[in-house]
């Protein structure tokens, strides 16, 4: 029992249960004192808030800060001892690599949840007519699929960034290790609250939660809001930490233009996450208040405006898609030179294109509202800014192609996913402009075309690069390689299935299939395509299952990875054994060349600093 209790996660969940009960009890008590009866919604919301705080206190994510507040000393972050073995992953650790893996595993669990939700409603859609789902459950699943996967992506990015950035830039850890741990642990209870939404009535609004529909939705809507709200904290704090780390903790000689390109993409992404996430929290909070306290922010009959919500919501949620894809594009740019044996073409331009996308990403949110009823002329500037995104994105594509040109290309599994990512993201990119010019969007808006376009950008910009990163860095994490055959099976099953799925979605969308409908008119003739899309969806799920099996199996039975298995110039491969040791580099290194000078004889990126570095 005591042993069980020593596991942070167990303590945290107990803390969340106790906190939730406290919150519900407190509110009900206050209402009783005021002579009011039981009311589920306010009680549940306060319970959810208290539950999250209860988890954080119980898991120990705020203990050190509490001690500081009391004026007590704590251990330095480097002296912090993790429990041995697997135990360290289930409790608070300040090691960026442990936190990175914690993020990553949580992300994969949510990926499995979000994907399974899709499989359920995809089965429903395999034929016209209602097969086995109720309308309410269908709508809830659609909304959950969206938001759970968004959270999964955010955590996945945090995982990659946490694990890799300090290794890539030669830092011992992140700038603020405790904040880092807090950022991860707040995401756990927040995700639990989010998942609970489906158990307390779900919600029928999709992940966009537009009022007035979200004002009338069941209780699950509030759990959705609370879950997203706290996950937003995680995102903001993580971004802050990454920016500070990248700006301040690079190895000697590593000026900004000698950073591995992935660090640039993380920097760009973090700048967006740090400055935009507040807006989605705010917009959801306003709906929450309107529901709880009757404040009519979005009720037109009482002086509110439903369009206001959409502006606030998309001011985050559009840049958010760049949060999702920039690190993935960074992974592509990072891995491509290794497998092409050539420098990344136009490094500075690629780095700046990430910043360019981040910047223009803030100016385009209105394109989600072309049919929403915003002022007519307002649609035109948003069309210009939207298409402008194509310019920095184009720079990336052209640079990748130029990198491939006259290389000596090899095709291990990570490279396959990199190439798959480029092609799929290209499809996502090319289907953007028709949705970005207003008049064509009047047709495409809210159709399956958008669904297809969006899945192309997400898979090309995140899922494919994520899988590439997993196959590439898994040996660095575990010391063992993932199975190559299973990996190839994964790729060659997923890629065609995915292309069939999204091309099918775009086709039915253009022909008139609306988004988020539980049933469709057989007269429109979509049955066959829908069946094919469903089959393709299941094949994707099967292929990801291969990855999961591979991840678990290879941890014990994989081929041992010794040395610089990819012949990379990057310091984590060139200068560290696998698995990467605690506190990373025991000797500091300095940067003496450019990161991607493959094919330049005698050039080096890093070398050890010979003299011991004094305290500065």
């Amino acid at each position, binding site marked *: 029992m005591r042993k069980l209790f020593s596991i942070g996660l167990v303590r945290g969940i107990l803390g969340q249960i106790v906190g939730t009960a406290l919150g519900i009890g407190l509110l009900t008590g206050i209402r009783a004192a005021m002579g009011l009866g039981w009311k589920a919604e306010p009680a549940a919301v306060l319970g959810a808030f208290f539950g999250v705080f209860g988890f954080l206190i119980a898991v120990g994510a705020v203990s050190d800060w509490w001690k500081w507040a009391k004026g007590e000393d704590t251990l330095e972050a480097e002296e912090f001892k993790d429990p041995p073995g697997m135990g360290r992953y289930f409790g608070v650790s300040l090691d960026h690599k442990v936190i990175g893996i914690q993020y990553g595993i949580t992300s994969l669990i949510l990926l499995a949840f979000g994907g399974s939700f899709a499989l359920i409603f995809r089965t429903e859609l395999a034929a016209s007519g209602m097969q086995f789902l109720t*309308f309410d459950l269908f709508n809830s699943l659609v909304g959950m699929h969206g938001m759970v996967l968004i959270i999964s992506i955010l955590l996945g990015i945090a995982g990659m960034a946490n694990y890799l950035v300090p290794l890539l830039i030669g830092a011992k850890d992140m700038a603020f290790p405790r904040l880092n741990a807090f950022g991860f642990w707040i995401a756990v209870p927040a995700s639990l609250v989010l998942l609970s939404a489906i158990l307390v009535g779900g919600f029928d609004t999709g992940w966009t939660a537009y009022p007035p529909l979200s004002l009338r939705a069941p209780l699950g809507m509030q759990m959705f809001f609370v879950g997203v709200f706290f996950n937003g904290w995680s995102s903001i704090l993580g971004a802050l930490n990454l920016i500070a780390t990248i700006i301040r903790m690079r190895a000697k000689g590593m000026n900004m233009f000698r950073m591995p390109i992935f660090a640039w993409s993380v920097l760009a992404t973090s700048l967006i996450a740090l400055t935009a996430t507040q807006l989605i929290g705010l917009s959801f909070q306003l709906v929450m208040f309107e529901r709880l306290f009757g404040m009519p922010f979005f009720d037109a*009959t009482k002086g509110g405006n439903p369009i206001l919500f959409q502006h606030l919501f998309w001011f985050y949620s559009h840049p958010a898609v760049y949060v999702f894809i920039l690190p993935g594009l960074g992974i592509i740019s990072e891995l491509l030179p290794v497998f092409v044996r050539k420098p990344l073409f136009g490094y500075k331009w690629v780095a700046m294109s990430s910043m360019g996308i981040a910047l223009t990403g803030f100016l385009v949110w209105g394109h989600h509202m072309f049919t929403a009823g915003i002022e007519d002329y307002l649609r035109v500037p948003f069309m210009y800014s939207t298409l402008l995104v194509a*310019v920095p994105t184009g720079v990336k594509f052209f640079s990748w*192609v130029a990198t491939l040109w006259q290389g000596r290309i090899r095709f291990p599994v990570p490279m396959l996913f990199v190439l798959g990512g480029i092609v799929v993201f290209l499809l996502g990119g090319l289907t953007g402009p028709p949705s970005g010019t207003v008049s064509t969007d009047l047709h495409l808006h809210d159709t399956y075309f958008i669904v297809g376009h969006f899945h192309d950008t997400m898979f090309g910009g995140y899922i494919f690069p994520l899988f590439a990163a997993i196959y590439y860095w898994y040996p660095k994490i575990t010391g063992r390689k993932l199975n190559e055959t299973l990996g190839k099976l994964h790729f060659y099953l997923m890629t065609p299935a995915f292309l069939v799925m999204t091309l099918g979605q775009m086709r039915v969308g*253009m022909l008139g299939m609306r988004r988020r409908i539980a049933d469709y008119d057989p007269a429109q003739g979509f049955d066959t395509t829908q069946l094919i899309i469903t089959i393709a969806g299941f094949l994707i799920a099967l292929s990801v299952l291969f990855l999961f099996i591979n991840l678990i199996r290879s941890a014990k039975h994989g081929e041992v990875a010794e040395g610089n298995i990819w012949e990379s110039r990057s310091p984590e491969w060139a200068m560290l054994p696998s698995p990467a040791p605690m506190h990373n580099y025991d000797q500091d290194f300095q940067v003496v060349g450019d990161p991607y000078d493959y094919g330049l004889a005698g050039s080096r990126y890093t070398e050890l600093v010979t003299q011991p570095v004094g305290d500065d």
Partner: protein
Amino acid sequence: MEKSLPGNARRVLIASANPLYGKGLEKLLSQQAGGQPIEIRLASTMSATLEALEQWNPTLVIVDYDDHTIDRAQFLNQFITGEGPMQVMLVSLKASGAAVVYDRRTLSSDQTQDWLHIPTSTQPPQVSDVPRRSESMKHFAIVAVLVAISTVLVDYLLRTIGLLPIEASTQATIIDRLFNTHFMVISFLFSLIVVFLVYSLIVFRRRGKETTEGQFFKSSTRLEVLWTIFPLAAVIYFSYLGSLSLAETRKVDPQALEVKVIGRQWSWTFEYPDFGITSDTLQLPVNRQVLLKMTSQDVIHSFWVPEFRVKQDLLPGENLVKELRITPTIIGSYKVRCAELCGKLHAYMESPVVVVSDADFQTWVDDQVKLLNADPATRGELAARQNGCFACHSIDGSKLVGPSWKSLFGSERKFTDGTSMVADEVYLKNSIIKPAAEVVAGFPAGVMPQTYADSLTDVKIADIIAFIKTLK
């Protein structure tokens, strides 16, 4: 002139003042040698060249044709006086790597002239693909051709595969024109990237156990600027096209027919203020612009008829009435479907949209106006006519496909299964909404459509029954 070089142990001398020229060729030659013994020397000055020619006696001399520090007359002199077999190859990078080979033993006087004077416009007679730049040009040429072919194919595919529903409005035609422009650009960019990518994967892959690195080049500011400026110009132009197209779809016709559209969970109502009509079907005259003024009674909905292309959300709130202009161009039946998630039955929020000729529209309006003031039986007669009942059911007692309605109400009906029943209101309603349940003896089963339960409102059914009751 021989192309293959004699002898097993090849000795190659490269004469050029440009070190890159020598290094590049050296690398290329050693790769091409494929295991055969080869010795390569570089000479960067005239004197070093002559010396090597004299003492080392190479089998092949490669001379940089563009390099004027090499004195050709002197070199030629030395070359023709020698004894052993020797070839010289003149390679010009300025002429995209054009090369010409001369053999010491078969040298003609024409060739000597060619050699001494840089040809102004005529290409050297024999072109080989040895040097790097021409290799590179070859790759580009192949890719360019493939990109062009692929662009045409993809564009053709996108246009002919049937991606869009029929164009049933003026706005649809305008929008589809922009779609076609999009298809063209998409086809080109898709082909450009994918052909370059796939070509690289095939041609520049590592073969076997090869461990060589790729060509070392890091960036080209000219290229980067080029592929920033061109897309920038393209997207600005596209936005401009998009603006024009948007303006065109919104062109105002002062004669437009005004219709008020009301959305609610989960149905539509259409009001015609000019005529005082309210309908659950959107009836439109062909080739006349209709101005839809749209509002919602509860949550956000969206008006979309795919064949008309354009789409507009309906917002709750009296001050948030949104407008949409459509000019239907093809007579036919369509459906308006809600495109913004609006709760449980979102999927089923649809209503018929019927585009008719001017005359038919006027008839419809007249009928509707008449209906407003008419008694149920009159409305019923109209509904029966609008729904095509009289095609099969007479009102004068004559036998058509189905039983006549004359003296139907209150009569004894005999069915094909031998049972019978008195035709009361319940029976008549059931016969309309479930015509296959009981079939009157003497009439074929399964002829009457089974869709009236959906297409007729309860009021209309009651009206039709009231009309039947009057047919004594």
